[in-house]
């Protein structure tokens, strides 16, 4: 039994079909990269899995259980957490308070505090523990989202462009952080625009185009897949690699 089994997931917004019959499986312990040009339906797919959106049809199974269409907080309770591409920090709360919100549904205030401090340490924000989230840089906010999501103790973590919009110097640190989460046994589904990053992280890559899955294979094969190169990476990339 795979950790996640998605079958024929479909979502349309008016006339635009954002996700069309997407089926995929993610095994326990995998890190799967989700790639595709803008508008290919990657974030919609995350929202459907997490319950932020309801699919028109299709099913999402997690650990064998049908979780399709459940509300987000229930799905989180079952062990799926996500970060947001468009960051959503609790701006008027401190870093510590932000991360504590993720831990609180499962434990007491004092336990949540200890737990949150650990996650803050892991993502390297310990110097900012008592700073308001609104004062953080974009890179720091990405780390905050990671810590907050990790505080919910997920089995599956959906990362929506963690390295997007971050200056180049910060990217290696974030990649190392994601690799650390993977070593801790969290299964990851990662949306990435940077091919370099996704090749480094993923043991399998799924490519979407116009809401459809066009490729699902090992990274080196995806990188040489003719359809992917044409539709997404472009001929220049193919030539250089």
């Amino acid at each position, binding site marked *: 039994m795979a950790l996640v089994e998605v079958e024929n997931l479909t979502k349309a917004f008016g006339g635009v079909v954002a996700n069309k019959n997407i089926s995929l499986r993610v095994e326990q312990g995998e890190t799967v990269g989700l790639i595709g040009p803008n508008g290919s339906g990657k974030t919609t797919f995350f929202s459907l899995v*997490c319950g*932020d959106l309801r699919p028109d049809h299709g099913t999402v199974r997690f650990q064998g259980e049908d979780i399709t269409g459940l*509300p*987000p*907080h229930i799905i*989180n*309770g079952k062990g799926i*957490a*996500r970060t*947001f591409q468009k960051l*959503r*920090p*609790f*701006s*008027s*709360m401190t870093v*510590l*308070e*932000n991360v*504590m*919100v*993720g831990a*609180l*549904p*499962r434990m007491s*205030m*004092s336990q949540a*505090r*200890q737990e949150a401090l650990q996650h803050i340490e892991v993502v390297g924000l310990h110097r900012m523990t*008592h700073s*308001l989230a*609104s004062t953080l840089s974009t890179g720091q906010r990405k780390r905050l989202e990671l810590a*907050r*999501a990790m*505080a*919910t103790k997920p089995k599956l973590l959906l990362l929506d462009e963690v390295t997007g919009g971050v200056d180049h110097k910060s990217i290696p640190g974030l990649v190392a952080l994601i690799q650390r989460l993977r070593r801790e046994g969290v299964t990851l589904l990662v949306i990435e625009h940077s091919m370099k990053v996704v090749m480094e992280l993923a043991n399998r890559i799924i490519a979407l185009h116009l809401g459809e899955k066009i490729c699902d294979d090992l990274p080196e094969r995806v990188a040489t897949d003719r359809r992917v190169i044409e539709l997404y990476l472009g001929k220049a990339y193919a030539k250089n690699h």
Partner: protein
Amino acid sequence: MVEVSATPERRSSARGWVIYAVLGVFVLVYPFMRFQVGPLQVDFTFPYTRHLFILIFLYALTAQAWNILAGYCGQVSFGHVAYFGIGAYTSSMLLMNFHLTPWIGMLAGGLAAIALALVVGIPTFRLTGHYFAIATLAIAETVQTIFMNWNAAGEAKGLWLPVMKDSWLNFQWKSKLPYYYIALALLCLVYLATYWMERSKLGFYFRAIRDDAVATSSLGVDILTYKLVALSMSAFFSALAGSFYAQYVLFIDPFSVFQLQHSVLVVLLATFGGVGTYWGPIVGTAILIPVSEFVRIRFGGTGGAEDLIVYGVLIVLIAALEPAGIVGIYRKHIRPRLFRREGMIDVHDMGQAAVD
């Protein structure tokens, strides 16, 4: 292992506690104060000076009740008078029909307000955006209309509560003194509840929902439930104020207890003091109510809305200069000068809310 509280770095300073103690003693002895300062005779034992403070306590109570929902949890209501009125009518009707002591009536009013809150909240909170705010307005008007046409509730004529002899059981006195201390106690109650809420999981969830509801639910928090908790707390305390009002004035009608203007006034008081801050509602009320009373006495009898004109001017000034209200002005401009010690954050930063 030492038990660590949620936010130990936010302890109030010793100086803060001295200020609270002085204020506490002041409000306790205020109705008996009578002294001479040079040629000036100060006398707070008049019924009117006591009445003024009762008004302040009552409005601060409703403003803080509103603040729990709108300030902390971010769900703005423009119809809070509905819960106030439900409280007033519940205790009064139980008293008149079943001779039930207003103390139990007050509790029943609070529970009735929670019931109304759930009826309003369950459908409207499911929608995102401003539906809740719009619905609150409509609900308040609807409730007023119902009471205007409800025979048992005296329709538009209202209810005259029976005058009974002074007693705690009857919740009636000729003197204003007992009302003064009851209003003060109710205000303390809502402030204690808010204090506890800020430091419990509720406070974290409320503020998280206000800042970003989608992110909050993605972290496993059932946002609908917690919005309903905030609304219920808020409705409960508003209703206590309503029951108190009915016993204090001994006359209620749909125009006085369901007045739209009162819903707006409560929003103004909390906003002026500082939305989402612990002290905002009482600070706003303690400034605006005496101003309004002064204006009303000084210019009154000329047709009405002078006090509202003054409110309007003050609110525009606050909105333009410092949207976080008086508490925001204090935090930004006064406290940094008073307390220069690096890194000292006192307990009131919990409701940082409106500042950002």
